[in-house]
């Protein structure tokens, strides 16, 4: 079976996913120095529980969550805390971080390799506690703490759980490789989440360009127990197929109301990476201190998917992968459509990092910014049904109120309009500015 409908709009950028070649996951050696920013999730930053000079092991809790919407942080290597200071942060520019120097022994806090089969019998509350302790956040990029998302208010029960394996961003193949290497564990995690939420069904959505993952999951489903309600659904290949609202529409035909959350229509979406992390937290009692990322781009000599410790500086990964002698233009955390350009390679891998791309000047777009010729391609491409050209012009003229009235705040910043624009207009830049200005004036009014 396949998803019958598709969302309106969308684009087909060149995928470039084959740069990584084979889809094995290689273990990246623990770095000499790990930089662990305290803010790695939405909500408030966590509070350090170690101080300078403390000895830590792999998996030791080094910062505790502060408030409900916040997440724990664990050491990713064994060694000594040498400082807690401001350090480059890939999302915030600069933020407080715990800096740990490795003792090269890589001692774990406890054994993380044996599966605890009794975990399947735990109660929902116990499982949520394990997830909260492990500091798991949404690994698709939103970094919303998982224990909050998995505990919806009682008046909004979740009926459908969607596991998002679309990975529609070009270049990135980390979720794909994870699906191929850890299919069984992901399914176990999915069953676990379905049980916590008491959901009726669980849909595993995978884009059709990952045929091997689709067939592997179907095969595994047949060999597992407790799989009632689980289903694998291939999706059309289109960007942004993996965007939450578009994914839900494709699979269920329901639209998340403007300004609302998926749980308003009884749906919850989790990323493949998050599901795997939840499996590890529940069955292996392993906190989130490493994740799979793609290191790619035509600037990288040996692109690959690595299982890498959180806190590894980008430059360690880039040096290890080698740099080609082509002109390097951009260093990006995440995919080329929604990723963030970095000003330095000192930044560390954080929980939100799904990939590191080193783009050459031939791949990275040079935006010339000719005048808009009103071709309407952005209107056709916008998956949210907006008129990006109009919104951006209104923001450009300072009319935030008008822009708001035609859907400024509904934009999810997928970048489809900006990609397709033949004039090279920086539509998204203006839309982001408009959203920022709107939030600022709204907060000022309060």
């Amino acid at each position, binding site marked *: 079976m396949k998803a019958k409908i598709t969302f309106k709009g969308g684009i087909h950028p060149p995928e470039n996913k084959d740069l990584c070649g084979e889809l094995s996951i290689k273990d990246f050696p623990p770095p000499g120095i790990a930089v662990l920013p305290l803010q790695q999730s939405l909500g408030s930053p966590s509070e350090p529980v170690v101080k300078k000079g403390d000895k830590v092991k792999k998996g030791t809790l080094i910062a505790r969550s502060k408030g409900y919407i916040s997440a724990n942080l664990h050491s990713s290597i064994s060694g000594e805390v040498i400082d807690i200071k401001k350090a480059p942060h890939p999302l915030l520019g600069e933020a407080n971080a715990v800096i740990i120097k490795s003792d090269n022994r890589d001692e774990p806090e406890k054994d993380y390799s044996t599966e605890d089969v009794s975990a399947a019998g735990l109660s929902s509350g116990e499982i949520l506690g394990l997830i909260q302790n492990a500091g798991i956040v949404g690994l698709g990029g939103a970094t919303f703490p998982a224990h909050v998302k998995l505990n919806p208010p009682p008046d909004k029960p979740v009926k459908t759980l969607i596991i998002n394996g679309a990975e529609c961003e070009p270049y990135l193949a980390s979720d794909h490789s994870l699906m191929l290497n850890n299919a069984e564990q992901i399914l176990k995690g999915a069953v676990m989440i379905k049980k916590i939420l008491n959901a009726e069904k669980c849909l595993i959505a995978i884009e059709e360009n990952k045929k091997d993952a689709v067939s592997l999951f179907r095969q595994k489903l047949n060999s597992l127990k407790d799989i009632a309600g689980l289903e694998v659904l291939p999706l059309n290949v289109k960007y942004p197929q993996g965007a939450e609202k578009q994914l839900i*529409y494709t699979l269920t035909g329901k639209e998340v109301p403007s300004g*609302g959350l998926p749980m308003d229509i009884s749906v919850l979406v989790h990323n493949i990476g998050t599901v795997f992390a939840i499996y590890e937290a529940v069955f292996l009692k392993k906190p989130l201190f490493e994740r799979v990322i793609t290191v790619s781009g035509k600037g990288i000599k040996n692109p690959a998917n690595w299982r890498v410790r959180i806190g590894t500086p980008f430059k360690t990964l880039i040096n290890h992968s080698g740099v080609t002698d082509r002109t390097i233009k*951009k260093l990006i955390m995440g995919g080329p459509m929604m*990723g963030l*350009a970095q000003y330095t390679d000192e930044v560390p891998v954080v929980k939100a990092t799904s990939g590191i791309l080193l783009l050459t000047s031939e791949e*990275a777009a040079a935006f010339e910014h000719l005048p*808009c010729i009103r071709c309407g391609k952005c209107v056709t491409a916008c998956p949210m049904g907006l008129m990006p050209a109009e919104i951006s012009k209104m923001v450009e003229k300072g009319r935030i109120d008008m822009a708001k009235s035609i859907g400024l705040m509904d934009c999810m910043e997928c*970048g489809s309009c*900006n990609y397709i624009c*033949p004039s090279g207009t920086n539509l998204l830049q203006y839309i982001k500015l408009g959203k920022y200005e709107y939030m600022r004036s709204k907060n000022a009014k309060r």
Partner: protein
Amino acid sequence: MLKDKHLTVTVSPHIKTALTTEKMMWIVSCALVPAAGAGIYFFGFHAALVITVCVVSSLLTEFLCTLLMKKPATIKDGSAFLTGLLLALCLPPELPLWMCALGGFFSIAVTKFAFGGLGYNIFNPALAGRAFLMGAFAKEMTTWKTLQVFPDGITAATPLNLLKEQGYDSLMKVFDSHSHLFRELFIGRVGGSIGETSAGLLIIGGLILLFARIITWHIPVSYIFTVMVISYFTGGVFGIPFHLFSGGLVLGAFFMATDPVTSPITPKGQIIFGIGCGILTMLIRIRGGYPEGVCYAILLMNSVTPLIERYSKTKIFGVKR
């Protein structure tokens, strides 16, 4: 290792499509080449001169305007070339050359740059240039090089002219049978403007634009469909192919009405725009003073484009109507 390299920091996205405005303009120009070639083949060397003069005058005016207005030079984006080419294709083949040059100047200087340049014009520059020449030199603009001759030696004008002024019978006198008339219209061996007669080659060009995703189907399909429906109700089965292939309809529907700058931005608006063009075209052809109405129909619809856009907003995802 990256220390000596400069990293560019911009907001996302970091990749973009290869289809730029410049490429779009040149692809449209290329799609017009077959029709222009047919025009030169049927109407002779002077047609080639008309095309050259229009293009050169448009380019020169664009250059002077950007120079005077101290704007970055935009000649290479191909929009002025395309305007000149389109203008030439809707002019009669024997128009004096200085008039062609004046038309090119008007198209670029008045309809494009007086409004702010590429992307800001309200009216389609090529059509506005043609309308200007029509107002200025009404006689020359309706003097057609004729390819068909009456048995008694009187030369005939365009088929639309013939139908309007002398009636169906004289049209049939020139073209013997329906099938002969339709064949000639499709190939382009009839009187008319340089680039508008060869319906077949223009349709090929239009299909190129559709497949290259430079235009969408909304305007051409709604435009042509409307014309077909109205011509069926006014002229019967004969009317459909006759009104479809004669005059500038195919050129207008695929190349002029789809001009992105002057047509609505939303798909729904584009359909309304196409229907409006179709109704006005047929209204002018059947009831109006001119035999052909494509040019004025599109110009009139250009002027209501902002209004259409206001009432054809897209449906925002997650918002209930």
